[in-house]
């Protein structure tokens, strides 16, 4: 078994799909048999549990464990739909200062002895919460929308990863970075209204993990609290599953780069899910 990996899902900018992607990638990894835990680092704005559909099962949280108010086992929530998946929710009432390097490091070390993959769902910004989420990272998934402010912030967070992570501080091999381009609308790209994949890759210059097409299934998934990878029929679900496969070293061709071809009837009745 390879050494356990800490993977941080980050972006700099808010609202680009970090939590959706964290939930989808963690669930996808678990479906592939990896024992996975996903941690919410957004202290004060707890949302991962909601997207994962376990909000009513939260008793203790990440901050309680850091402060020794609860044991790790008491705070971990086991997913009921898939084997191998656990969630470590965060606190809704405290602030980002509740996270300390020592405390976070201690919890991650304990998780490393139990799990194959530890997914850290970062808050937006480049302040303490985001820095704590990326400090111990072995790999980072940089979630980016094909839009100017998101690409710029992704570049900024790449700079932070290469200078402020523990790997950077210790002079170890750098954090391995992956681009996850979300909310990609191939139809608008083909009309020249949206930055295309090649543009974003040229600017950020990091390897591509996946392209997630703009898809109604993403909102539907968060509405019902079911990670979108479980919707294996939807384009977004398939795209996330592909990304998980690539993360695990499989070679999978990128899809959803061309606008979906729609029949005459579909065009008449408008876009269906």
């Amino acid at each position, binding site marked *: 078994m390879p050494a356990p990996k800490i993977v941080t899902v980050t972006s700099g900018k808010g609202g680009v799909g970090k939590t959706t992607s964290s939930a989808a990638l963690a669930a996808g990894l678990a479906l592939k048999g990896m024992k996975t835990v996903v941690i919410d680092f957004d202290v004060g704005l707890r949302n991962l549990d909601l997207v994962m559909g376990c909000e009513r099962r939260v008793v203790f949280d990440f901050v309680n464990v850091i402060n020794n108010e609860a044991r790790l086992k008491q705070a971990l929530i086991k997913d009921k739909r898939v084997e191998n998946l656990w969630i470590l929710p965060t606190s809704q009432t405290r602030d980002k200062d509740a996270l300390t390097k020592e405390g976070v490091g201690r919890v991650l070390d304990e998780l490393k002895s139990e799990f194959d993959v530890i997914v850290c769902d970062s808050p937006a910004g480049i302040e303490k919460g985001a820095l704590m989420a990326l400090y111990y990272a072995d790999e980072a998934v940089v979630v980016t929308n094909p839009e100017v402010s998101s*690409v*710029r912030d992704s570049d900024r967070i790449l700079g932070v990863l290469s200078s402020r992570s523990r790997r950077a501080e210790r002079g170890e091999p750098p954090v391995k970075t992956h681009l996850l381009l979300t909310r990609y609308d191939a139809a608008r790209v083909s009309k020249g209204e949206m*930055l295309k994949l090649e*543009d974003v890759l040229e*600017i950020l210059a990091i390897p591509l993990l996946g392209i997630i097409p703009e898809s109604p299934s993403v909102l539907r998934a968060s509405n019902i609290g079911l990670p979108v990878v479980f919707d294996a029929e939807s384009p977004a679900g398939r795209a996330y599953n592909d990304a998980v496969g690539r993360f695990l070293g499989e070679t999978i061709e990128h899809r959803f780069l061309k606008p979906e071809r729609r029949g005459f009837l579909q065009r008449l009745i408008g876009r269906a899910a």
Partner: protein
Amino acid sequence: MGLFDFFRRERSASHAKERLQILVAHDRVGRDSPDYLPLLQRDLIAVIARYVEIDEDKLTVELANDGISSMLAVNIELPKSRSQKTGVRAPSGALRVRPQLA
């Protein structure tokens, strides 16, 4: 929608790319400058102030990187009257120090 509007919409993604390329290049320059530069600037001012009176705003420290070598450029503008008194020669009113770093 006129023809002009059509072409304007057509090109918005390439505008986005051009703007981003400039912006990101600029961001990266600031990000890559080492954090000792402000301290170096402070120390240089202190040393030079022992010999000549200088205006802190008239000293700049910059690091340029062309990929092969780094050039540290220190620009100090000396006040004319003061430099004459202390005997420091600065024909153009400026002292340029350009040591080559590896």
